[in-house]
């Protein structure tokens, strides 16, 4: 390693750092991603808290959810749930493919995951347009748009990560040994997926 660094023209004064001791079996980037997801889960937690205050704690909480003239599109969102759950499987497929060295499978898996994610966002956009109320229509709408919107933003982040992975995959990166760049967005994507199921159940079904 240090020989390598010297070859870069910093000979003498610069040498590379000594290789750090690995004091845990868990990989650093994976741990970082898991902690980040923990933090993200808490962000969702604050939105769930706001939802809970509006719907349960508030002395003037509406008796029906959503209040009288409004309805949540349970069916459309259910279809969306299926889309997102499917995308978790295609993500898994992509990862398994590269582990086997199957680059075509990796690319196909990533592309289909991205496509499903986009389909989810598109459906959600259409749902917003036809839902019949807007964020200004009361606290129930605030909670609804807050949670689904926050989730939508996370789908967008997940898609960005996946797109990066896809770009690199098409440019010939990743091998059966080294595929962190696919694995980490994958973990994030599964998190986004699980989060959606929780959002769907609490906001639409309960």
């Amino acid at each position: 390693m240090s020989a390598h660094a010297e070859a870069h023209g910093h000979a003498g004064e610069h040498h590379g750092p000594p290789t750090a001791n690995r004091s845990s079996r868990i990989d650093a980037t994976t741990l970082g991603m898991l902690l980040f997801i923990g933090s993200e889960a808490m962000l969702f937690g604050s939105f769930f808290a706001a939802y809970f205050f509006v719907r349960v704690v508030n002395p003037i909480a509406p008796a029906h959810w959503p209040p009288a003239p409004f309805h949540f599109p349970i069916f459309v969102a259910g279809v969306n749930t299926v889309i997102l759950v499917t995308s978790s499987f295609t993500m898994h497929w992509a990862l398994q493919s590269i582990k086997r060295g199957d680059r075509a499978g990796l690319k196909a898996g990533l592309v289909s995951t991205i496509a499903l994610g986009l389909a989810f966002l598109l459906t959600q956009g259409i749902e917003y347009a036809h839902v019949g109320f807007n964020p200004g229509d009361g606290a129930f709408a605030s909670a609804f748009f807050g949670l689904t919107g926050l989730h939508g933003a996370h789908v967008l982040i997940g898609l960005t990560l996946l797109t990066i992975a896809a770009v690199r995959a098409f440019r010939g990166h990743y091998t059966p040994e080294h595929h962190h760049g696919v694995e980490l967005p994958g973990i994030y994507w599964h998190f986004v997926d699980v989060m959606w199921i929780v959002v769907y159940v609490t906001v639409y079904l309960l």
Partner: protein
Amino acid sequence: MTTAAQHEHDTPQAFEPFGPRARGFLLRAGWIRATWCTALFFLVGMFIVVGSRAIFDMHPVYNWTIITLTGALTMAPLGFLTGIGAFDYWFYWISGRPTREEDHSGHGAKAWPDYFRINTDHKVIGVQYTVTTFFFFVIGGLMAMLFRAELAQPGLQFFSSQTFNGLVSMHAVLMIFLFIIPAFAGLANFVVPLMLGAPDMAFPRLNALSFWLLPIAGVMFMSSFLAPGGPFAAGWTGYAPLSVDSPVGSMFFNMGVQWAGASSILTALNFLVTIITMRAPGMTFWRMPLLVWANFTTSLLVVIATPFIAGSQFFVMFDRVLHTSFFVPAHGGYVLGYQHIFWFYSHPAVYIMMLPGFGIVSEVVSTMSRKPIFGYRLMALSFIGILILGFSVWAHHMFVAGMADWLRVPMMISTLLIAVPTGIKVFSWLATLWEGKIRLTTPMLWALGFISMFVIGGLSGIFLGSVPIDIHASDTYFIVAHIHYVLFGGSVFTIFAGVYYWFPKVTGRMYNERLGQLHFWLTFVSFNVTFFPMHYIGLRGMPRRVFDYSNQFGSLNMIISVASFVLGVSTVIFFYNMITSWTRGPIASSNPWGAHTLEWQVSSPPPIFNFDEIPVVVGGPYEYGVPGARHAILHSAPAAEEVHA
């Protein structure tokens, strides 16, 4: 250094995301690129807003509130980070071109300009952090001087009430979000990897990004004074609905908190990963210095709690910009929701602002008494105790807020119980002093000053934890006294202790001991004269956050204001000492305190990559007085050890 990218490289290649360096000064990462990128990103943000409003036929097309939010408070900072070069490596990596070998060109500082660029060396970042945060300490302190001048007499003398409230709010926000929290992160940045026997943090580039997020937050807070309608003025707690209805300036607070919060979350992630995965061989959890334990628990608090303040500020912004009704009771909103969410972060935040200080004091007390920390394991476990209890007490800030009555007593009991792990710490420090060989150096003075002042602050916290007393004392100057005894007498004293203690390590020079002692005593006395009478005027009937008060408190407030100016002047001694010692002070040896922890076993300042070889840890960190005990073996450094023994 542990990024996945490195494992995936094929051919090494020069790393220049915007083309070869010859491309010219406009494209080179740095301040020039930062300037035009900031402007460019602002315009892009503005274009997005104006464009979409035009398309969707919304009026007015130029909605300056939304343009400010999108362009100035969101896009422009991203432009700055892009321009300064925080994302260069990642952009390159994203583009998928062949990975290049790390050449460490962004690591270390050879001359002062290296402190003004993206630098991935944890030691440089530590210095960047610490210096930046002290800058904001001065600004925040000067604001305190301004409103103390106003408060010297009853009635309104110098400011409008808007400016006064703005000064108070900004004072607290700068002190908390840009001084205490990041100053601890800065000291830990410098020290923790060294203490662990690691060559750097786990994610050096992320570390650099965390730092550069900070000045963004600071500039954003301060520029709210320029916003039309005045600065945010709803107190640092920004309670809704007041903060929702106030002028645009308060959005600078909402967004500034997001940037500062992102910075602390990223640093905390980095600390956690570093501590878990990069300890030197033999460095078990039970051999880590208590400072590392402190930062470990603090980082857990940050990662878990900080998203809640982000959430609370998002809701306020949504209510303002998207016209949602989270806190609008007429439309079904719940006003107290803000406070619950805010304090679920901000109570743990007070321990974020105290635990690292406990760590620093443990180092200083043990080294300067020449004794092992008394009850090391219980000390470490009490961090965990505070961590857990800290999440179960947030509603003690809401005893009079009108929340559910049944919450009061359980929250009171858990609040009071925090005295137990905190007391364990205090008593263990005292027992560490016992039978020691105490050296009253400046860091030790600050540490002892801290213990006595913090106990006063903690005990006034016990008064507040008792609901009936809090009902009387809440939102009075008694609270202000509590705040400053724990935050100034607590956190700031430990920061001073840490800065003096590691000054020779960081700069390679020794500070002036006499000035250090003078600084301590002047601060210690004027601090008490400033803040102790506040207990009294608070209990007697002076509410907080007022520019005018009843005449009976006039003379005491005059004393407080005068003492607070002396307190300000005492800080001048500190800065004078730091600056002159850094430039002209006597050269310090590598281990002037004779401490055992690893950072003292390398040269001062430490070598660019900390260690030539990763040391092997063979014993506890504080084995003073134990014959033949060693903390670690550094293969290549026995010579250095002998010289300075």
